[in-house]
């Protein structure tokens, strides 16, 4: 009986590790297929390409005008970072420190953009932006990407702020600091790790945010991920290796941001915010 249980537990453990291993191997395969192909000369009916070259990168760079696309991507990401910090940090402070009637309603308004998928609210959002002449412009793309980022920053920062002792602030108040001075000289320095973590996650999310950019961007305001979508969509117009070279550039950009972000935050936070907010 004990023997059977022991065997069953072992088999169960083995099955779980086999699944994890299988998942990771396929994940590596999916990514490696893109990287290997982007360096290959021609690759048809064989395990690896016939030869290796870096010419697809220069070709992708010129034919997709990647310099301009990368510039747009970082302009959007930079503006979204700045905007979500300016709007999100003060709001998170207010939500962490004050209880007021209607707080649950405010929380609900902030949760909804995070749990409703962007494609559901993206079309009405885009039609509002087009109505005000912002559709298809860089400003429109920035506003659309900023929208879910502000609540995202708020929900990451609220627990950070709650764990700071309110007596620190009370002491500053006693010495005559107003709300502005309090935020500038006491709260922001204490919150730098939290703000940094939240903004890095916003950066990773903005670079990868396909739906909202796709629905609001026009020519000249497309970010890297949208450009990638269009080139995969029109596969056959260009060599697959050229598309893969562009995919590798996109992958490198977002993975570098991810690696930096992971130095400061736990991976579960990237999806885990939903847990805190969904209650």
């Amino acid at each position, binding site marked *: 009986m004990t023997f059977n249980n022991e065997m069953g537990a072992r088999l169960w*453990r083995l099955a779980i590790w086999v699944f994890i291993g299988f998942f990771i191997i396929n994940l590596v395969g999916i990514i490696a297929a893109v990287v290997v192909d982007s360096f290959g000369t021609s690759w048809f009916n064989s395990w690896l390409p016939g030869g290796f070259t870096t010419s697809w990168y220069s070709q992708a760079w010129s034919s997709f005008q990647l310099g301009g696309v990368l510039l747009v991507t970082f302009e959007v990401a930079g503006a979204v970072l700045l905007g979500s910090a300016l709007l999100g940090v003060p709001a998170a402070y207010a939500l962490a420190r004050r209880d007021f009637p209607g707080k649950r309603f405010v929380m609900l308004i902030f949760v909804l953009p995070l749990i409703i998928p962007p494609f*559901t609210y993206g079309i009405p959002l885009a039609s509002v932006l087009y*109505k005000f002449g912002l559709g298809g412009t860089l400003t429109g793309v920035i506003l659309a990407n900023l929208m879910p980022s502000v609540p995202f920053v708020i929900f990451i920062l609220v627990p950070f702020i709650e764990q700071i002792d309110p007596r620190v602030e009370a002491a500053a108040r006693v010495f005559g600091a107003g709300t502005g001075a309090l935020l500038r000289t006491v709260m922001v320095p204490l919150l730098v790790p939290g703000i940094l973590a939240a903004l890095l996650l916003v950066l990773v999310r903005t670079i990868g945010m396909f739906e909202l950019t796709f629905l609001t961007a026009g020519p000249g305001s497309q970010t890297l991920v949208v450009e990638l979508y269009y080139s*995969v*969509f029109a596969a056959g117009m260009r060599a697959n290796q050229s598309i893969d070279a562009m995919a590798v550039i996109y992958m490198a950009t977002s993975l570098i941001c991810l690696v930096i972000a992971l130095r400061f935050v736990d991976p579960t936070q*990237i999806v885990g915010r939903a847990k805190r907010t969904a209650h």
Partner: protein
Amino acid sequence: MQGMALTPAAPERARLSQRLARRGFDVTTLLLLPALLFVMALFVYPAIYGLWLSLHPMNGGGALANYINFFSDAYKYDTIFTTLKLAIPVTLVNLLISVPIALRVRHMRYQRILTTILIIPVTLGTVLTAQGMLNYLGPLGWFNRVLMLLGIIHEPVRLVHDFTGVFLSQIVGGFPFCFMLVLSYVTGIDPSLESAAAMLGAGPFARFRHIILPLLGAGLAITFCLAFVQAFAVFPSAVLLGAPSGPTRVIAIAAFHAAYEEYDYSMGSAVAIIMGAVQIIVVMLVMKASSLLYRGPVAGGKG
């Protein structure tokens, strides 16, 4: 004169601000306003505007013309079922795989390595995963090659430009999402509860059935809902990896088609609102079912 007019008003105003402050409204609370107004302007207002727009059809024909059009055209309303047929199985599979793995992994020392690997597909997003899967799962890709090498199949199986491709891409992106949520719920369960049950002679299955499952129930329902709404709004992988005019013509494609290919924002908004309504209905059914199955403290040990 002015001074006299202000004097009686000043204490009145002070009292009002004091009264407001006692209820929680002061300068600090006002810091909330910019963010709230911003989200109101770009989320709440578009939602209301979208509803208004959907009730004012581009081609006339009464307020409900768009909705009548949608529900009388099989090519349009079938997208609801196509999407449900994809989203519900994918979400269930992701959830069912996540639970045993999360239960196993919570005892692991190098948990962080695994979560770091799993966050990669979430970060890279569906567009890159789609391009990778087109290469990897294609008829000449490594996956088919390995299966043929092992003698499992004799000719390449069709995995992309079909329902399977979209299904698999939803697992590659959705499983890590589910797993991390479930893991954060599982780690919230006090391990001493399980030790106590084990000491009293409960086997692994009994411990799962009587301790883990009741404590995890609400968390699993929330995870299901969050993962389901994401899967229901699938767009890029359904276009790139699937057959967007046939078996994977999901509702997001119908919404996009109306708004951006027929330039009918009114119809596009109507489809987006139907999409949201279906998501809300499923979420409400799941939450209702989970509250019927388990009533009691959501978390905590003494329940």
